[in-house]
């Protein structure tokens, strides 16, 4: 290239004057000077490593961004390098990576452990479900109320503690970065305590040759426990009175992690000025928790005595009230079960039981029932309206009381039909037939099974009278000796017959028939028989005074009692006999 302009120039200039080297060089520099300078500058830039690195550094971030957007080749290309770099970093100083990861590792591990523990707590919950006590029940209620799990509540109640002081200590120097203390604690010497605590940790580490990173975690001194949580750059030490729950350690761990996250640069560069850590105080104060056991109150025995008396009194009163209520209920039930009693209202007012209702006069006496129920009648105010119950026993009782049946009568009720069995006088039967249907609840009176004693007596008297004979002397209207007695008896029977017949409204006609034996003439016998009949008629009417309904007939020897063979037969035929005719009988 350097030759061509020379050749070009040679064509333009005369050949007799060949261009010398200097002139050519001048010409070149005149024509190509600026380009040559640029070329040289470019060459220098390409050769200069530092400048090239600067150029690449200017475009590198944008180039990475563009390529990453395009595909993943860049990531796979540098992966090996990044891994090597991390390995190299860990090998040379694991602390750097540890410091970076420290705030992240703790929460990640705790999250995994928490989920494992939760299932364990669940199973504990189930086993605790089985245990039952008043305290357990109370805690269970608290768990429901607060929404916490039962196991948590149990934990809170069984562990009692107070976090009294919390120190944030610079790990290397042991200098106090921040301190929080409960109200009752004097915080003045916290910087000295902080130093000594660090010294003791160093002492333990030196004395027992523990590994770097391990260290004292807990110090027990009587009731106090110092819990120490270590971070790479700082330590949280908490003074706990009593027995702190394991959750406290988690809390301290979270605090030291949070502080490392927030204060990492000032912790690294700490030179003794703790002002940068003022904000960490809120973290420490959050750790000042406490949990008290509910104080048992001592109550004097007298109080319990009074309580017991009151309780017994209350118990007795309640017992009495319950008994009263039971009695009242039983009384009401008995009233309601009682036929002929209808309770319409029943209530208690101003210590009095009030009752109103309907009562059949035949029903049981409420006062009697009250006494049977054991209730003081003074406690009850009742008012009963009278009514007639159609309850069958009541209808029957009312029928019995209204009809007054004789003892020989048995009354029963079948539907609306009053049935009478046994025997009764005609008069009662007639009355009952009339009255029965007037009794509420009775539609009919049935007495076909009832014997009418009046009619029966009438029939019996009739039969007795008609079977009676009075014997006479031969050929005379004089009664044979001893027949007067029979006559008197007959007279009495006739008297009774009339009475009974009158009771049943029957007219009685008594025919006295005079008989003779077959000896002697017919004419004479008729007369004699007439005499005999009349003779008895007059005897009877004299005694009876009644002259109506009685007649005497002589029929001679036409109707002998027995066939006459012997004198005795004839004696039997010399007689009067009787015929009773009843007329006007409704039920013969």
């Amino acid at each position, binding site marked *: 290239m350097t030759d061509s302009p020379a050749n070009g120039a040679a064509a333009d200039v005369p050949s007799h004057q060949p261009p010398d080297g200097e002139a050519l060089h001048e010409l070149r520099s005149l024509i190509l000077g600026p380009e040559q300078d640029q070329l040289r500058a470019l060459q220098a830039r390409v050769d200069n490593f530092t400048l090239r690195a600067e150029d690449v550094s200017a475009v590198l971030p944008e180039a990475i961004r563009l390529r990453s957007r395009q595909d993943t080749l860049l990531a796979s290309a540098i992966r090996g390098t990044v891994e090597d770099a991390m390995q190299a970093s860990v090998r040379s100083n694991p602390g750097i990576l540890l410091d970076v990861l420290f705030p992240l590792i703790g929460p990640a591990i705790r999250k995994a452990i928490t989920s494992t523990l939760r299932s364990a707590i669940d199973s504990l919950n189930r086993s605790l479900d089985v245990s039952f006590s008043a305290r357990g029940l109370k805690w269970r209620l608290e768990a429901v109320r607060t929404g916490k799990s039962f196991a948590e509540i149990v934990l809170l109640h069984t562990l009692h503690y107070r976090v009294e002081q919390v120190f944030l200590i*610079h*790990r*290397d*120097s*042991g*200098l*106090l970065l921040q301190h929080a203390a409960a109200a009752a604690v004097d915080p003045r*010497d916290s*910087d*000295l*305590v902080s*130093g*000594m605590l660090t*010294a*003791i940790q*160093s*002492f333990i*580490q*030196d004395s027992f040759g523990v590994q770097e990173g391990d260290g004292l975690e807990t110090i027990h001194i009587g009731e106090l426990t110092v819990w120490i949580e270590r971070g790479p750059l700082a330590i949280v030490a908490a003074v706990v009175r009593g027995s702190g729950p394991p959750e406290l350690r988690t809390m301290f761990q979270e605090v030291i992690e949070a502080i490392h996250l927030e204060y990492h640069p000032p912790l690294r560069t700490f*030179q*003794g*000025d*703790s*002002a940068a850590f003022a904000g960490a105080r809120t973290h420490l104060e959050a750790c000042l928790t406490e949990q008290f056991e509910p104080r048992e109150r001592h109550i004097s025995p007298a109080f319990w005595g009074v309580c017991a008396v009151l309780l017994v009194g209350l118990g007795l009163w309640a017992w009495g009230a319950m008994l009263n209520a039971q009695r009242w209920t039983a009384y009401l039930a008995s009233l309601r079960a009682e036929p002929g009693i209808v309770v319409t209202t029943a209530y208690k007012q101003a210590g009095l039981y009030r009752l109103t209702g309907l009562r059949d006069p035949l029903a049981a006496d409420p006062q009697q029932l009250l006494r049977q129920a054991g209730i003081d009648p003074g406690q009850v105010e009742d008012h009963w309206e009278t009514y007639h119950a159609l309850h069958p026993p009541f209808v029957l009782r009312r029928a019995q009381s209204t009809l007054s049946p004789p003892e020989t009568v048995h009354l029963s009720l079948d539907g609306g039909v009053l049935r009478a069995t046994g025997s009764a006088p005609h008069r009662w039967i007639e009355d009952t037939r009339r009255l029965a249907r007037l009794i509420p609840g009775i539609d009919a009176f049935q007495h076909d099974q009832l014997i009418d004693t009046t009619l029966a007596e009438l029939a019996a008297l009739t039969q007795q009278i008609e079977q009676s004979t009075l014997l006479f002397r031969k050929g005379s209207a004089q009664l044979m000796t001893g027949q007067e007695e029979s006559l008197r008896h007959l007279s009495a029977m006739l008297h009774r017959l009339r009475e009974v017949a009158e009771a049943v409204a029957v007219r009685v006609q008594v025919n006295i028939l005079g008989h003779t034996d077959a000896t002697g003439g017919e004419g004479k016998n008729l007369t004699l028989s007439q005499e005999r009949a009349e003779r008895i008629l007059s005897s009877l009417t004299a005694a009876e005074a009644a002259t109506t309904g009685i007649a005497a007939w002589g029929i001679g020897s036409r109707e002998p009692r027995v066939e006459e063979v012997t004198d005795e037969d004839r004696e039997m035929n010399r007689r009067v006999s009787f015929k009773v005719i009843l007329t006007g009988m409704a039920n013969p």
Partner: protein
Amino acid sequence: MVQKKICMLGAFAVGKTSLVARFVESIFSDTYLTTVGVKISRKAMRAGRHRCHLIVWDLAGEDEFLQIRLSYLRGAAGYLLVVDGTRPATIDAAISIQKRVQEAVGDVPFVVLLNKSDLQAEWEVSDDTMLELADKGWNWLKTSARTGIGVEDAFLLLADMMLEA
């Protein structure tokens, strides 16, 4: 409030504890020195514009049976190296200690205290020795725990050096 951890170092019975006893506050007894090997005290002071708390770690003195625990030096911003002016051997001990401390915590400010300066009759540290120390670039002061002379100055000097650092 700026806090600085400083250590009191030196051979056995050079008067470290006596030096701090008059000028610092502590809640711990001297028995800590024989048990844990350190006793921590506090000295409040004003150095220039700064109010400062020196947290003084008084380490048990070194002898042929007991070496100082270097772990106690971790995080120290400075230290006082105490020498018994009546026992020149303690200077050698101090030099030995200083070497080890420098290896452990690096270049941190320190002041050498030539103690028991009140015992002039028994004083055994020659001016040459003191010049040698000065040649090493060490700052030194004569102190007396009994009279109190130089003690405050020593703390102030160290504080100044630390706050400048």
